[in-house]
């Protein structure tokens, strides 16, 4: 199954590690046996990649002199210098992790040692010293490198190149009457298709090719960062490969998908506990061999698809569809789960398939109404039958309107794309 051949050498805290160039740092290090990528800010709890999508912040490392870089969003390349942050003396060995043991119920530094004054002064000094995460960047100073940004006008801007966004874009562009551009923060189009064992890269590439064939422009490594209503009469700021694009469109379609969320149990932040879609990415996109045993939590369609795919690839799977997990075991890496009722499950990783949270904040900033879905992971964007939000010209489709999964998101994208095309006819 695995065609991964290490072809480059990177340096982790100075030691050489063999890796596959182009893979994310977080994936390469994990495949090479590195377990702890970072430490939490306050209690120095060990952390490793959870989402592999750039959304959870559990994988921040210092890479080539830049602090707080997402290791899951940075491609490995020959000679790269990768360093652990916020641990002392280094990496997996962090004596400050004692904070976690000393304060098992947490500590509120805001109300600690408010008197006497000498103790307070000492506390302030200590907290100040421990504050912050990465060290100041090594580089900097290229004033000329501060780009001024470029203006861009299109007919339809689609944010998110997952199944919903690609479907909306291609339907909208089909008659060749309007310019359609899709922006995605990831390094390739596909969104949640990429992590789905029944779809994967092939399906993503096919849909992207279909879109390109009707004239859709696909831009990756391009994150929409904010809607600014007051600048130039309203513009969408896009970090397009490090250059600012100030975009205005006649129609905006938010197809930003959903964020992976964790399940609630003790020590749910242990390294080795991944979002199910991250495990899907490891298996489907990065083709890493999943040695040992994978515990899958959740009863949704995705959990079942993942369990099936891993099992048929010969992996050892324990699917816990409805059991309640009390706590995770293992100190630096998960070694098992304690379930309600006393049962104990041994595992080498956990894939949490909780209902993902709609990635609705950008659409909301653009004026869309949202609604809290208590069982739907978070705030869903409210749209009518045509995908229109309450703001003129602003549409949304797919998981951002409430988690529906790959196939339904794609269907929604098609129908919203059609509606948007009609609105411009």
């Amino acid at each position, binding site marked *: 199954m695995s065609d991964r051949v290490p072809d480059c050498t990177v340096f982790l805290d100075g030691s050489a590690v063999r890796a596959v160039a182009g893979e994310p740092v977080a994936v390469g290090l994990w495949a090479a046996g590195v377990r702890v990528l970072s430490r939490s800010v306050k209690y120095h709890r060990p952390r490793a990649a959870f989402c592999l999508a750039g959304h959870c912040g559990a994988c921040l490392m210092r890479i080539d002199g830049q602090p707080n870089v997402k290791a899951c969003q940075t491609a490995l390349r020959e000679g790269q210098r990768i360093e652990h942050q916020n641990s002392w003396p280094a990496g997996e060995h962090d004596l400050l992790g004692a904070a976690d043991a000393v304060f098992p119920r947490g500590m509120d530094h805001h109300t600690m040692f408010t008197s006497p004054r000498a103790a*307070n002064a000492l506390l302030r000094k200590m907290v100040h010293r421990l*504050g912050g995460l990465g060290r100041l*960047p090594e580089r900097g100073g290229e004033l000329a490198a501060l780009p001024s940004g470029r203006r861009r006008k299109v007919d339809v801007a689609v944010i998110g190149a997952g199944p919903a966004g690609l479907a909306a874009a291609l339907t909208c562009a089909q008659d060749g009457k309007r310019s359609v551009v899709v922006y995605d923060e990831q390094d390739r189009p596909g969104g949640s298709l990429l992590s789905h064992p029944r779809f994967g890269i092939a399906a993503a590439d096919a849909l992207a090719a279909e879109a390109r064939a009707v004239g859709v422009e696909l831009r990756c490594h391009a994150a929409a960062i904010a809607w600014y209503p007051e600048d130039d009469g309203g513009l969408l700021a896009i970090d397009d490969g490090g250059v600012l694009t100030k975009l205005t469109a006649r129609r905006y379609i938010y197809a930003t998908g959903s964020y992976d969320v964790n399940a609630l149990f003790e020590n749910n932040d242990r390294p080795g506990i991944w979002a199910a879609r991250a495990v899907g990415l490891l298996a489907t996109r990065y083709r890493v061999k999943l040695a040992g045993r994978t515990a899958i939590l959740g009863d949704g369609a995705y959990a079942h698809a993942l369990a099936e795919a891993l099992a048929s690839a010969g992996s050892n799977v324990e699917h816990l569809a409805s059991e309640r997990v009390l706590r995770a075991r293992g100190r630096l890496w998960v070694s098992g789960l304690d379930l309600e009722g006393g049962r104990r499950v041994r595992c080498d990783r956990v894939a949490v398939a909780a209902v993902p949270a709609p990635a609705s904040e950008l659409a909301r900033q653009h004026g869309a109404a949202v609604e809290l879905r208590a069982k739907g992971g978070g705030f869903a964007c409210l749209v009518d039958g045509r995908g229109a939000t309450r703001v003129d010209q602003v549409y949304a489709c797919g998981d951002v309107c409430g988690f529906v999964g790959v196939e339904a998101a794609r269907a929604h994208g098609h129908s919203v794309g059609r509606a948007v095309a009609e609105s411009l006819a």
Partner: protein
Amino acid sequence: MSLPRETDVLIVGGGVMGLGIAYHLAKNGVRDVVVLERSYLNYGASGRNGGGVRMQWSTETNIRLMQESIELCKRFAGELKINIWLRQGGYLFLARAEAERARMERNIALQNRCGVPTRLISPAEAKRIVPELEVSELVCAAHNPRDGIVFPWPFLWGYANQAAARGVAICPFTSVERIVPTGAGFRVQTSRGEVRAQRIVNAAGAWSPEVAKLVGIELPNRPHRHEILSTEPLKPFLKPMVSLLSSGLYFSQSMRGEIVTGISVEDHDDGHVKMGSRLQFLTKVARELVRVMPRLSQVKVLRQWAGPYDVSPDGNPIVGEAPSVPGFYLCCGFVGHGFMMAPVVTKYYGEFLAGSARPAFFDPWRPTRFAEGTLVKEEMILG
């Protein structure tokens, strides 16, 4: 919190001023106090500011008050049982033009007379304090090592919790909509019903002109949007708050390690409070910041936001009883420095309302000075 029907003192505004006054009233025995806040506590400037505290001012009143305010900050944790994370890393004002040197020298002389150890220093010395500074464009700098920064939110927790513990009714999500003077006090209509009050304190910050209008008073202060941003957290490296006099740029490193920076940007000041964020600000502040701190060019911005400055015509606050409406007290017009003033101002204001002597600063900051034409201009306003 259910809304009391009657009270001695009704405070409009749940920012640092309103809550601080409420605490000091209760501490001095006046517990029949209600604080009404239209939104959540600290919704206005108090929950959006940069936390800078300094003694470097151009008027003696401000210098002396801030000396005392910083002393009070040092005692805050002991008294209010909450850490405000005061860090006296100093304030470093940078000058790019020769014309600014004379002004700096004048202000430093006044500050020194008041006992503030500010010094005029060379660009090279400024670079010793902040090695990452680009000093080639600078002519001189002013440095007071005793200035510093605080973390604003614990002030709210301290004042509100301690006031509530002493019986003050703190009512968020309650807005004041109409005020009817009755001769022996006021009938105040709110979004949650009516309250009768003997006295009212208008501590509504940038909204204070609107609130004053409810009793027919025209205040001269106007809201002005001020934008600010915060970066990713970095290990502590920057000691002082640094500010450029020519552009009004300022930046410091927070307790959590973020670089917090702001600058003023042109706006249409039309009397309405605006709190939207603009790309224009982000671009401007990034350019100005990197010009003096090139090493920050790769640092990532995490969030930007805006809050309202409460700008008075001479840059000084408006405090005391409104001459035309007895029983209606003003505590507003603090421009962009009301947070640092709150510990000292609210202490004396609260004590005064509880029966102590009229504080000395009530004189220079009296509301009638605008009509009289006796303004005292404060020069050291940023943004």
